[in-house]
């Protein structure tokens, strides 16, 4: 619906559309508005630093999730299946890293903006949207609270077989949140290359290690 056209042959500038519909009392048709939107998106942005124009070339998911209303259930299911297939599981089966590093990542909201230099590892942005530890009072509420995440889910020993499913679910959620919720507000941290596997392990430890302040306090 709103992909940025890569060919310029059919670009119609908004003024031309305005001329077509001028004098008409009705609101512009959806098609007119869609086409004007494409033209305006294309004309309004320029690349800056590491933020290139390919960032507004939507993939299928972004396109499907750009409506005022969510996509149909069938579309959502199809997207979720496709996204699930992208998840890369930890090669050595080690899901948990260091929760202290995870806390630093959760606090860090930097990375991938046009003012960030290339090659600097991104933070996880987690506190922007989630409550996590009890100590940090400055947390967002776009996502659910993750305080006592592991404890509430009965993860007392992450190495125990009983914990395996929860570890896998959580890894999948961080790697690609759209695998379980097509139009989730949460970024696809692993899939989009925002965080690497080692960083995700540290975030996993923050959420699931019984010694992490998330579960211990």
């Amino acid at each position: 619906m709103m992909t940025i056209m890569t060919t310029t042959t059919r670009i119609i500038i908004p003024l031309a559309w305005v001329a077509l519909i001028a004098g008409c009392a009705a609101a512009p048709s959806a098609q007119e508005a869609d086409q004007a939107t494409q033209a305006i998106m294309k004309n309004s942005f320029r690349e800056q630093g590491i933020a290139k124009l390919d960032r507004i070339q939507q993939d299928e998911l972004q396109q499907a999730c750009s409506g005022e209303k969510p996509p149909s259930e069938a579309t959502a299911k199809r997207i979720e299946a496709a996204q699930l297939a992208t998840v890369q599981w930890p090669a050595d089966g080690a899901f948990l890293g260091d929760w202290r590093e995870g806390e630093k990542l959760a606090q860090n909201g930097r990375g991938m903006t046009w003012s960030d230099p290339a090659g600097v590892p991104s933070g996880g942005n987690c506190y922007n949207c989630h409550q996590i530890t009890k100590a940090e009072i400055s947390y967002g509420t776009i996502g659910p609270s993750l305080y006592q995440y592991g404890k509430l889910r009965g993860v007392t020993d992450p190495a125990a077989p009983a914990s395996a499913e929860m570890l896998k679910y959580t890894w999948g959620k961080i790697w690609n949140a759209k695998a379980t919720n097509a139009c989730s507000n949460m970024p696809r941290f692993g899939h989009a290359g925002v965080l690497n596997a080692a960083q995700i392990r540290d975030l996993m430890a923050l959420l699931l290690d019984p010694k992490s302040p998330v579960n211990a306090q």
Partner: protein
Amino acid sequence: MQNRREMVARSATVALLLAGAGVLPARAQSAWPKAAFDGKSIDEVYKGLGIAKPVESKDIAFTAPDIAENGAVVPIGVTTTLPGVKRIAFLVEKNPTTLAGLFDFTEAVEPSVKTRIKMQQTSNVLAVAITSDDKVYYAQKEVKVTLGGCGG
């Protein structure tokens, strides 16, 4: 309360005496007290200002937010019913340099002022009141400095 003339006379006498005794640094009326502003602890500021350790006073009403969304601007205010307050100093315990600013009051103004300070991190903030007979009192409050936005 003392009238203004008495107070000025008294404080001038006290200042002369103290200066003579080497207690008070040779601070001209409008000179910027560098030693105090260079102070990196509360004690260094007291020393720089040439004042004794203050005692806590309930007669200083100190206004500061519990939480500052941004340490770059923290609104604070003080007013006091203590008699003869000639100077109020604002100190931030955990700033790189402790003394934020000083205000000197004449009898023509209320001993109250509002200002805005910068805070590098969560810290105690002190309002220290110095009277014309060089008694020193303080009130303090902890202000939490948080990260308010996207953090990028």
